[in-house]
């Protein structure tokens, strides 16, 4: 294959990298809008049923949510460090940092699982919920919580898989431009940013 064909349709590698990164950022913008629908629903519910919203949010496990915020932020740091390491030409350090980010991501899911299990036991899950709440608006908050965090958890899972892919690929680790690792890290940071807003929307709303 001729040299100029390698980056087709781009003329050179730098431009191809630029395009990849821009494509990723645009994709992330559309992800933001996807979660925007959930946040808009939470906003509407809060404006319509303020007291119910706060009362139902009080059922959430604030400390687990806070711990998860810390876990995810730290995981994001690890992902950023992995990019840093790959650029510095330290593939092993990059792999280790990615692994740490990935494990912290798993820890996040585990904590989330504990939370869900607790909520299931307490009968807060959709369908089992009516008995615990005063009125439908509170049940709705709980349902919205499950939809929002569930959709987020799906994104976390995808992020973990992507990071595993990047950590396993030798070419990705040795790429001094950190293209794959960089784009995976971007995705992971966005998953983090979404959580940063889910946290006050859901958990902090219930603190009296």
């Amino acid at each position, binding site marked *: 294959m001729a040299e100029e064909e390698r980056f*087709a*349709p*781009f*003329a050179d590698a730098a*431009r191809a990298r*630029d*395009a990849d990164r*821009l*494509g990723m950022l*645009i*994709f992330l*913008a*559309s*992800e933001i*809008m*996807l*979660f*925007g*629908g*959930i946040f*808009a*629903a939470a906003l*509407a*519910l809060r404006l*319509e*049923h303020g007291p*119910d919203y706060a009362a139902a949010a009080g059922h959430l496990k604030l400390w687990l949510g806070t711990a998860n915020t810390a876990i995810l932020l730290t995981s994001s740091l690890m992902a950023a460090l992995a990019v840093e390491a790959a650029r510095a030409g330290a593939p092993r350090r990059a792999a280790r940092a990615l692994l740490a980010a990935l494990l912290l991501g798993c820890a996040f899911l585990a904590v989330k699982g504990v939370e869900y299990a607790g909520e299931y036991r307490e009968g807060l899950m*959709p*369908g089992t919920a009516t008995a615990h709440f005063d*009125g*439908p*608006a*509170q*049940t*709705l908050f709980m*349902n*919205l919580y499950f*939809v929002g965090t569930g*959709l987020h958890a799906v994104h976390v899972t995808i992020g973990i898989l992507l990071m595993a892919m990047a950590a396993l690929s030798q070419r990705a680790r040795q790429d001094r431009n950190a293209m794959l690792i960089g784009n995976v890290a971007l995705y992971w940071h966005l998953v983090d940013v979404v959580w940063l807003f889910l946290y006050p929307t859901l958990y902090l709303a219930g603190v009296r």
Partner: protein
Amino acid sequence: MTDEPRFEHPPEEAATSYLADGYSLRSWFLTTDHKRIALLYLVSITFFFLVGAGAAALIRLDLLTPQGDLLSNDGYNRAFSIHGIVMVWFFLIPAIPNVLGNFLVPIMIGARDLAFPRLNLLSWYIYILSGLLTLYVVVGGGVDTGWTFYTPLSSVYANGAVVATIVAVFISGFSTILTGLNFIVTIHKLRAPGMTWSRLPLFIWSHYAVSIIFVLATPVLAITLLLVAAERLIGIGVFDPRLGGDPLLFQHLFWFYSHPAVYIMVLPALGVVSELITAAAHKRIFGYWFVAFASIAIAVIGFMVWGHHMFVSGQSVYASAVFSFLSIAVAVPSAIKVYNWTVTLYKADIAIDAPLLFALGFIGLFVAGGLTGLMLAMLAIDVHVTDTYFVVAHFHYIMVGGSVTAFFGGLHFWWPKITGRLYNETLARIAAILILIGFNITFFPQFMLGYEGMPRRYHVYPPEFQVLHVISSMGAALLAIGYAMPAVYLIWSLLPGGRRAPANPWGASGLEWTTSSPPPQHNFIGQPVVVRQPYDYPLAHPVSRDDG
């Protein structure tokens, strides 16, 4: 003619056209060539157009009599729902961007392909997957929510295959998002040397604007439909008042997507018409920057007007007043375009060919649609005519009279480039005029029906409306003939012995006309370099012209 060459690139060598580059199924279904993918889209959207048109035919036949003798109430509801869903998501939205845009965006900016060719193919497969699911819905019982899926009708009460339809539309959204992403990156990163932003064809500007909407609006529809499906399946309740939700929230989120979706259909059409007008007029567009920025302004302000679909919904009257004002504001950039096209024709050198006829037809219908849209933005008028045939007529003027006419115009204009063949010009002119007449006979009476109080989505209607309905149905028959004609003579031109097209049959400016017809596999032989302004016709700098 001693003019310098407009674009400097190595002289044409004999190159295989993209059409001659492999004939196997594999070479089509696994292609990453944007031109072949455009043709895949052309065939698929034509198919879905036929499905949607079939539903429209059922509707118009049924409405010949006030009692609706052809269909049952449920049958009629299913017919207009399928008509709306198929036409909006599987024909109108992909039509211009995914066929003409896919083919032309890289060529017009001097690139050899879109930025992510494999993603482009993936978009098509996603589109086909969602389309197949929609066809399953059509044969497997249908859906009776209308294309708007209003809750709680769709989430609780409707009895068709609502979830399957929602999943289909949800999936098709990914195709749209990927296309938009691909266009934006391509326009930013793959412009040929010398192709500065001020030299971009207006077609590119409008596709850039529409891509912004693709990327930012579609995900909101996706999550909204997901919530409706979840509500129907497990009773989440975000939109169900009995569960503490608010049906108006659905309308807010739905129209946050679906109003910009109207601009998804119209913006590419505006881009096409700018190309058609300048090429026919042989003249630089009047007010290039106003026309270019008008596209961006429409894309941005278009996101702030959705509430005008909800003036009678129980939305706060103050919010309505705000949305009404913004809706009037969004009419300004559209008006700018129309005025600029008109002045472009002044002192021009106009070739009255089929593409120009389509473009002029577009302008007339678009102006009628736009002005009735302005009436609908006026609160007190909207209260009377919203949810009536007035609205039906209005958006058909925009979507069919506007988008579809522009799509046909663009297809005629670039057909020689796409296929390397020339079609029968006389038949094309007849078709353009027939479509214009047929369209007006079909939809103008619907304005009258609406003002007189005929609500939309009515299977059985009061007998005093019958005369206008019959006129409308007769117009629809004429329109169908108009739409069928190009299918005949365009396909005819492809048969062996059809006339071959030269590289630039219209004498038009633009990079796509500097390459052969049909273009070679990588669009150009060598890398084109742009040295001139767009629409740089000799007339812009008065020099003597010796060509015809």
